[in-house]
């Protein structure tokens, strides 16, 4: 007796977004990244289109970070003082695109400046041809100051600029609009908040295909289930035709996974946690992988070994399978 394969009919689709511009398009990137376009829940190829795989951004900083796990500094320590060299190494380690996060201060504790931020961005753009995202340190006034300068200096590159938050999105949105960049819209693990901020940004005149949704997440063990379910709900809403939730989703499993004790600390932890490095990599891989299952289009990660493993996951998931 033949069994009817249950397929869901969706009226909506995820919006495509293009990050990075090649010389023909007014930028200097050697390639661009396209995400989104799905017409089904993650990787259900038998039901709809999954035209683009999720991509992995490797996060780099404008200077040596003070608080990263020693396991990360083992890998990046030799290039961490030079954003150009770091960008190059990240590209060699399999990044599809890069995220440059700007620091709050310089190594001596003086506030970061627009000049330094622009210099770092220029170095990165020269050293690597990958599409680039640039996020401020997360303090409204400084974010605006730094990101406006970066946005002007990299006009036409189709960067993703962040972080747009409910309290602070106008300046960044305005400069991204003026300079042909995209923005990342970040809200705290809530479907309605995520939607609301997209509406506010769009109301300023930003086209929807230049707004990425960062619904934020906790790491594995630290609230990932909230991020996971908010992403599933946003994606379901998108497929049901809710236009304000149809942007591609960007998420930061690297940052989250690498700040928890399981990854940061090697000593004085329970024996049952096992080998430090193995555990830390698994923590980042698990956080990123679970979020890809729930709909992430861009995952931002930190360790090259995790990146390689998550690439393998994505490659497998992009194989279309017809159920029988």
């Amino acid at each position, binding site marked *: 007796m033949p069994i009817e394969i*249950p397929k869901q009919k969706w009226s909506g689709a995820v919006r495509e977004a293009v990050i990075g511009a090649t010389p023909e398009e007014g930028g200097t990137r050697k390639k661009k990244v396209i995400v989104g376009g799905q017409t089904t829940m993650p990787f259900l190829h038998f039901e709809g289109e999954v035209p683009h795989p999720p991509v992995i951004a490797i996060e780099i900083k404008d200077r040596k970070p003070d608080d990263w796990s020693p396991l990360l500094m083992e890998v990046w320590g030799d290039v961490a003082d030079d954003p150009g060299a770091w960008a190059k190494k990240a590209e060699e380690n399999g990044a599809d695109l890069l995220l440059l996060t700007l620091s709050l201060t310089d190594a001596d504790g003086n506030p970061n400046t627009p000049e330094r931020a622009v210099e770092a961005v220029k170095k990165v753009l020269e050293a690597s041809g990958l599409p680039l995202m640039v996020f401020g340190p997360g303090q409204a006034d400084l974010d605006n100051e730094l990101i406006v300068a970066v946005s002007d200096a990299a006009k036409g590159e189709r960067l993703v600029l962040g972080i747009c938050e409910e309290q602070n999105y106008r300046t960044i949105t305005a400069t991204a609009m003026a300079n042909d960049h995209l923005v990342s819209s970040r809200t705290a693990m809530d479907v309605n908040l995520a939607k609301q901020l997209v509406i506010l940004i769009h109301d300023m005149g930003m086209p929807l295909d230049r707004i990425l949704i960062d619904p934020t997440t906790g790491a594995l063990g*630290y609230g990932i*289930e909230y991020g996971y379910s908010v992403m599933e709900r946003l994606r379901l809403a998108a497929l049901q035709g809710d236009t304000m939730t149809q942007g591609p989703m960007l998420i930061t499993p690297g940052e989250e996974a690498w700040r928890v004790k399981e990854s*940061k600390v090697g000593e004085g932890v329970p024996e*049952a946690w096992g080998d430090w490095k193995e555990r830390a990599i698994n923590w980042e891989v698990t956080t990123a992988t679970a979020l890809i299952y729930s709909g992430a289009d861009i995952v931002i990660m930190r360790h090259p070994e995790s990146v390689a493993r998550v690439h393998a996951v994505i490659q497998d998931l992009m194989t279309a*399978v017809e159920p029988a």
Partner: protein
Amino acid sequence: MALTGIQIYKLLPKTNCKECGFPTCLAFAMKLAAKQAELSACPYVSEEAKAKLEAASAPPIRLVTVSADGHEAKAGNEVVLYRHEKTFYNKPGLFLRVYDDMSADEIQAKAKPASEYVVEYVGIELDMAGTAIQARGGDFVAAVEAVRAVSDKPLILIADPDALDAALAKLQEIGIENDRPLICAADADNWQAMAELGKKYNVPVTVKADTLEGLADLTEKLKEAGLQDIVLDPGVRNLSDSLTMYTVLRRLAIKSLYRPLGFPIIAFPGDAEDEDKEYALATMAIAKYAGFVVLDRFTPARAYPLLVLRENIYTDPQKPIQVLPGLYEFHNPGPEDPVFVTTNFSITYFSVANEIDGSGMPAWLLIADAEGMSVLTAWAAGKFDADRIAKAVREFKVEEKVSRKRIVLPGLVAVLSGELEEELPGWEVKVGPREAVDLPSYMKNVLAAE
């Protein structure tokens, strides 16, 4: 899935005799649909209608339990595709597999540490469900004995029917209470012998086929043979086919109410050719609907994140795991010691409590009622503000416990410090680190130095 009142009404005698205690058959049907009445209250309902109503009220995915001693691995009874729609109920058990061509020593060296493994996460003890034993040209019964000598946890047995018969007899002889393994696998050729074993030893049976029809055909045969406890192995071995087939199986069971496939799924990440792929397949099995998960490789650094993922995915989204608001003590704090404050989200509580405890320094930890949300989420939702914190200070009579009134806010909500100073006159409001992991150094370098 449950029938509507009208659907039930059609199955009733429609005589309105009132013996059930309701004025009409329709009224009774409505109460049945709302689960406020029992079918047995109607003396006239036909056998046929009874069977239909019972079948309709059976769960869409049958609950299958594998047990031994006091341990149980349950799978099934799930009702949704996405956890936010309700919740996922029965956490898939992780089984570590050994093979019968390994020596008894090798088998025990592999099975014992995994079977004994326990890791604590937010106050809950997580462990492996048990051991899977697979025939590979060795002495199957001896392998089962070797495992049973070091573990009294549930088993999954994978062998041909003859070897399984001998092994099941051996388990009876060993005589661990409730020893009810899952046996694998019935296929198109051996299903009769497997069904016999399932009945003879009252154990659940896995059916294995590469197609949905093949699986459905086998479950129907086993059901006809009198077996109820069945588990499905759709024979998938990659992430893409696992996600596809698990999703289709779940939809057929829950959305289409297709009874022949209304059984839990067993996944075999252990069949992967390398450890990274095995790990990825395990995450997929946990997130996407498997009920039993068989692994070949065990290390604490693999098991811990997988078990935590399972906890997280299976947490009831309607009930965030919370701890009781109150004033918690660490290392016998006195009136001079600092008061930390955070929310009652259990992950937040345990992260902070573990660090304060690990610092070895005395301190108070005030847990405010933030409706089970983490610091930032609660703050954004207005559930963790100066007002609520001040309320907690009063409610739990903190001022009676401390003379040196120092309260340390989580660094993530540094913005609250001004308001909190207004709410708590006489208190010194300090801003602690953003991450719990930095608390010990903060206590040592900042607080103790004052």
